[in-house]
C-alpha cells in the first residue's frame, strides 16, 4: 500500500522519464533509420504510458484518491486563482493578531465582473510549506476570511472559496487564540451572506479546517479530491489503534467526491484530466473555471433573500436519521 502519491505513481514516473530520455536520444540521433526506430519506440511507450494512466486513474480507490488529493504536484488555490481570475489583489490581516499565509484572499475579476476569492494555500517546497503552515490555517486565517466575506457582502461581490487543507492548525497557540471560535464564526459569516457563494474542494477537504470556508451556496468538488470528517489515519488509529490502516479507514469514511455527491452533500463533481489535475494543470483549471461559471450562472436572478434561504435549506437538509 503506497503511502504517498510519489510512491504510488513511481512506475508512471519511470515511464515518463524513459520517454523523455528516448526523446533526447532521438533528437541527437543523426542516422534517420535509427531515429525513426527510436521514434517508433517512443510512440509505443507513450501508448503504453497512456494506457497505464488510464488503468491507474480510471478506477481510483478511496486510498488512492487520498494520495492524489494530497499530491505535491497538484495545482493549489493560487494556481487556480491566478489563472481563472484577472486582477487578483491579495489582501491580508485579521486586524487582531496576525497575518496567516495558509489562507489567501482578496477581490478579483471573473470575466470582468468582480468577485471575492478566498482559499487555503499549501506550499510546494520546504520553505513554502512552512510559510503556508502546510495549508493549516490558524484563527487569524479564518478571521481574515471573515473580513473578506464581510466586504463581499457590503460591496455585493459573489464569493468563491477554494478548499485544500489537511486540517485547521491544532497547535497550542491556535487553541489559545480560539481556533474553534474562528472556524465557527467563519461558517456563521458564510451563512449570513446575501451574495451567491461557490465553494470548490480542490484537494484535501480536511474536517473543521475545510468546512470553515466551505459553506457556499453551491459546493463543487474535483473528481479526485477528498472530503472527510477526520483524516483516515486518525480514524484508523481510533478505530483499530492502527494508523497504518488508513486505506481501510478511507474506505469506511466514504471520503470521495463520488460518495459525497451520492449523499447529496455536494452539488457537482468537476472532472479532472486523465491522470489527475497535476498531469494537465491548464486543463484542470479550465474545467474548474467552467464549472464555477456554470454554478454562478445557475444562481443568477436570485435575490438576496432567496440566496440566503436556499443556502440555509441546502445545508439544513444534510444528515440522515429515522424518526417516529
Amino acid at each position, binding site marked *: 500500500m503506497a503511502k504517498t502519491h510519489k510512491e504510488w505513481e513511481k512506475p508512471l514516473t519511470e515511464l515518463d522519464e524513459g520517454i523523455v530520455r528516448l526523446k533526447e536520444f532521438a533528437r541527437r540521433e543523426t542516422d534517420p533509420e535509427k531515429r525513426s526506430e527510436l521514434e517508433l519506440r517512443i510512440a509505443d511507450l507513450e501508448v503504453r504510458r497512456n494506457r497505464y494512466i488510464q488503468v491507474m486513474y480510471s478506477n481510483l480507490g478511496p486510498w488512492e484518491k487520498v494520495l492524489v488529493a494530497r499530491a505535491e504536484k497538484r495545482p493549489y488555490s493560487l494556481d487556480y486563482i491566478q489563472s481563472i481570475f484577472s486582477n487578483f489583489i491579495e489582501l491580508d490581516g485579521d486586524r487582531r493578531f496576525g497575518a496567516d499565509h495558509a489562507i489567501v484572499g482578496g477581490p478579483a475579476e471573473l470575466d470582468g465582473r468582480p468577485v471575492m476569492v478566498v482559499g487555503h494555500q499549501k506550499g510546494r517546497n520546504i520553505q513554502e510549506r512552512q510559510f503556508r503552515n502546510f495549508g493549516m490555517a490558524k484563527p487569524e486565517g479564518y478571521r481574515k476570511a471573515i473580513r473578506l466575506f464581510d466586504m463581499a457582502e457590503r460591496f455585493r461581490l459573489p464569493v468563491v472559496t477554494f478548499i485544500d487543507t489537511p486540517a*485547521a*492548525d*491544532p*497547535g*497550542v*497557540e*491556535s*487553541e*489559545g*487564540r*480560539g*481556533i*474553534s*471560535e474562528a*472556524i*465557527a*464564526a467563519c*461558517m*456563521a459569516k458564510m*451563512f*449570513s451572506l446575501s451574495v451567491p457563494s461557490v465553494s470548490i474542494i480542490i484537494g484535501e477537504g480536511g*474536517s*473543521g479546517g*475545510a*468546512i*470553515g470556508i*466551505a*459553506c457556499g451556496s453551491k459546493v463543487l468538488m474535483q473528481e479526485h479530491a477528498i*472530503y*472527510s*470528517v*477526520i483524516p483516515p489515519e*486518525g*480514524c484508523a488509529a*481510533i*478505530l483499530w489503534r492502527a494508523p497504518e490502516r488508513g486505506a481501510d479507514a478511507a474506505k*469506511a*469514511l*466514504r*471520503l470521495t467526491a463520488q*460518495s*459525497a455527491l451520492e*449523499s447529496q*452533500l455536494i452539488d457537482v463533481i468537476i472532472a479532472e484530466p486523465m491522470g489527475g489535475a497535476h498531469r494537465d494543470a491548464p486543463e484542470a483549471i479550465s474545467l474548474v473555471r467552467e464549472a464555477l461559471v456554470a454554478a454562478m450562472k445557475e444562481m443568477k436572478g436570485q435575490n438576496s433573500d432567496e440566496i440566503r434561504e436556499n*443556502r*440555509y435549506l441546502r*445545508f*439544513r437538509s*444534510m*444528515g*440522515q*436519521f*429515522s*424518526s*417516529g
Partner: protein
Amino acid sequence: MLQRQPDSTLFRRPRRSSRPSEPTANLHPGILYPLSMKAPTRMEAFLQCVNCKKTIFSIDFEQSLRVCPYCGHHHRITAELRIQYTFDEGSFAEMDSDLRSVDPLQFPEYAEKLQVAVAKVGRNDGVMSGTARIDEMAVAIAVADFSFMGGSMGAVAGEKVTRTLERALQLRVPAIIFCASGGARMQEGLFSLMQMAKTTAAAERLAEAGIPYFSVFTDPTMAGVLASYASVADVIICEPKALIGFAGARVSKQAGVGKVPDDFQTAEYVMHHGMIDRVVARREMRSVLTGLVRTLGHHLRVA
C-alpha cells in the same frame, strides 16, 4: 472527532487504602455505588469522588448537585439531572426524542455501538431537547449527555440542536444549550461534518433575529461541537475545570512550538484566553442563566 478519549468512568471503587489513618474510607464502610452516571437509587450508598478519591455519602452528593463537597469537582451528570437542576420543576417538554441514528455509511461496528449506547442510556441519542421554563420564563433547550457515545455529534444530535435553535426562533424565546461532546461522530463521516455547518447556520439565523442564545460548556466540550454551534453563542458559560478544546491535547502539543501551560484546555484556560464569559459553579448555574434570560431576553417578553 474525539481525538483525546476523556475518562468516561464517573465513579470508581476506591482503592483499598493501606493506610488505616485515611478517615473517610474507614468511617463510611458502606456500599460503594457502581460505575454509572445515573442517580443512585439506594440513598444510603457511598460514592467516591473521581478527583480527590474521597468517599461521599450519596445524599450529600445529590444535595451538592454531584459536586464533590471536599474538592469541588463537578462530576459529569446525565441530561435528565441537568434539566432537573437547571429548569423549573416539571416545565421540560421533551421533543424529537423519536429521532434515531441510522448507519448511512455502514461504518464498521457503528450499529453495535449505537445499540449498546441506546440500551445503556435508555434514549435514542445523547441530546435531549425541547422547551422548558426558567424562573417562569420560556426557553428552548438542548442538553447533551456525554455518556451516549461520548456525546459525539451525528445527524441526530445535529438535527436536535438545529431544531432547538429553530424552535427558539419560531417561539421567539432564548435558546440554552448545554454542550458535552468529544466532537463529531466519525462513524457518520461527512454527514457528521455537515452538522457543524447546519447547526451554525441555525445559530446565525437566531442571532440575526435578535434572539439570545446561551451555551454552557460542560466537561468535555471538544472539536466539532466546540468549533460550531457551541462557540457562536451570545454568552458562553463553563463549568469549573471542564475540558474544552479543539484538538486533543496530545495533538496540540505535538503541533505547537510554544510551551503548553499546565491548565491547557481547561475552563480556566479558555476563560483566561477570552473565549468564554464566565466560569460558573453548578450551584449558581440556574441563577446566572435566569439573570441572562431576564436581561438579554427582556425585549422578547415585552414585545
